[in-house]
């Protein structure tokens, strides 16, 4: 009798087994999407469709890639690009978040800074590079300026919007309960904007990777972006694609990391943040 009951319960609350996870619809579809890209690419190259005959095949790319990751150059390149992204994007967080909070909260700040920001915003980040090289003593460091500029605007704008969207009643309730402006900042403005800030940070991180790679293609002697361009010049075509894959994986991993951290920062909106981050990374 007890056994039958147990069995019935197990039927209802069936834990997903390893096998059922592997064969879940999601996993299958995800696998299909990745595999099919490689298959189509291999076929296009193999049958020399249009100018695909110029491209390396997946097998070649894999072979070159395997060797590449064992070289010191690969690790220096990866380290350089990662460092640039982290420095640039962190600077964007450090400047963008406080600035955005003040602009969103106090009209004085928004009146002061908004016209200038609106003019700066359409200027693409690489356009800043010459100035950055002139101003910064070390050329390799100046590349970090591009991910900084690229990440700054999404971080800033998301922060501003995050503050603006806080319901007026929270401010009023805080005032009723006797808060000083400073307490309102810490207890209402900052936590209220946090969900939006965290998605701004995730977007900024992704864009930061693009910025760093673009910068490295323009200047410098190191980095994944530089290596891709060099490989093109030196006709090492498989390495171009290896570089692209490396950037893709690193960018993906870093936005995963941001996602992991932000969920911890907004425990009251766990479900929402998860779905939000999913829509960003997808």
């Amino acid at each position: 009798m007890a056994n039958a009951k147990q069995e019935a319960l197990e039927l209802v609350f069936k834990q997903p087994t390893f096998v059922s996870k592997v064969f879940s619809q999601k996993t299958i579809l995800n696998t299909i999407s990745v595999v099919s890209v490689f298959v189509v690419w291999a076929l296009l190259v193999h049958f020399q469709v249009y100018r695909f005959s110029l491209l390396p095949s997946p097998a070649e790319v894999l072979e070159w890639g395997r060797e590449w990751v064992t070289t010191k150059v690969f690790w220096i390149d990866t380290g350089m690009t990662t460092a640039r992204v982290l420095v640039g994007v962190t600077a964007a967080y450090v400047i963008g978040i406080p600035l955005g909070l003040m602009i969103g909260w106090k009209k004085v700040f928004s009146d002061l800074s908004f016209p200038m920001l609106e003019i700066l915003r359409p200027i693409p980040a690489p356009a800043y590079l010459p100035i950055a090289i002139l101003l910064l003593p070390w050329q390799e460091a100046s590349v970090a300026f591009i991910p900084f500029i690229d990440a700054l605007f999404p971080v800033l704008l998301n922060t501003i919007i995050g503050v603006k969207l806080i319901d007026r009643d929270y401010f009023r309730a805080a005032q009723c309960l006797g808060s000083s402006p400073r307490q309102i900042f810490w207890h209402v403005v900052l936590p209220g904007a946090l969900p939006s800030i965290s998605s701004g940070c995730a977007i900024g991180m992704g864009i930061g990777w693009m910025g760093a790679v673009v910068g490295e293609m323009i200047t410098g002697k190191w980095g994944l972006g530089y290596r891709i361009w060099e490989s093109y010049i030196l006709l090492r075509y498989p390495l171009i694609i290896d570089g692209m894959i490396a950037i893709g994986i690193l960018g993906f991993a870093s936005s995963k990391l941001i996602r992991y951290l932000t969920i911890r920062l907004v425990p009251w909106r766990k479900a929402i943040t998860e779905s939000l981050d999913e829509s960003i990374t997808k």
Partner: protein
Amino acid sequence: MDNNSLEQNNEGRITIDHVSKVYDPEGANVRALNNCCAEVEPGEFLVLIGPSGCGKTTLLNAIAGFENITEGSIYLDEKIIASPDMNQSPGADRIVVFQNGALFPWKTVLENLIYGPMVQGKMFRDEAVAEVRRIMDKLGLSRSTEDLYPDSLSSGMKRQVEIIRALINNPKVLLLDEPFRALDSMTKSLMHEYLLEVYEITGKTIFFVTHDLEEAVFLADRVIIMTTRPGLIKAIIDVDIPRPRDFHVLATVQFMEFKDRAVKAVREEALKAFEAGDRELA
């Protein structure tokens, strides 16, 4: 200010003295209040009722200190809290419970409840927590909710927490702007009885805004009926139904009579509002 929340006292008289309010005097020039006079006695449960758009929220916001007034003055006991030439400011002596609820979603129930005493620097954290628990017990809020975030509470329980968050500060008056409007009718009637119980225990002055007649008569010592915009006081009905009241009151002849009188008074105003092309009486 003494620290003993929930002490019965003779404080909390609101004097509304020839108050007028014009929104946007240079532009649209909307006169929302016109020469309003009323007095809320200490410890009284007063309900303000009137058709939509007549200026109820405007009056409540003026008392709360959220918005300034154009003419007249408002006193809380001997203290002037609003006049045209003063910078109004909300304070913990008159706390608002909002229509859509304004518990901070980023704070747990306990953090929400201790917020007032903490930011006012009235208590240390331990003291505040002890006081909050004492009042939770007294007003029937389960301690198991302490560590939950507001979004995981039922809508009725959220209102309960918000009322307690206000009472912790031992305000002189509670200001409620249609606090139960968004609730389903079942929860609403439970919250009516809960509020009456709280009123019975604390003896606070309550200023309650609604456009639900039955709610008004069930809860109030006095019902003030406001005219269509520009709002002024049309009639006052003394509801002499003995306290403590519970839902049985709703079925008595006495209740029906009071309700009938209120219906007639409000209907006239609603009709006027309707003919003036204003919004509906919900």
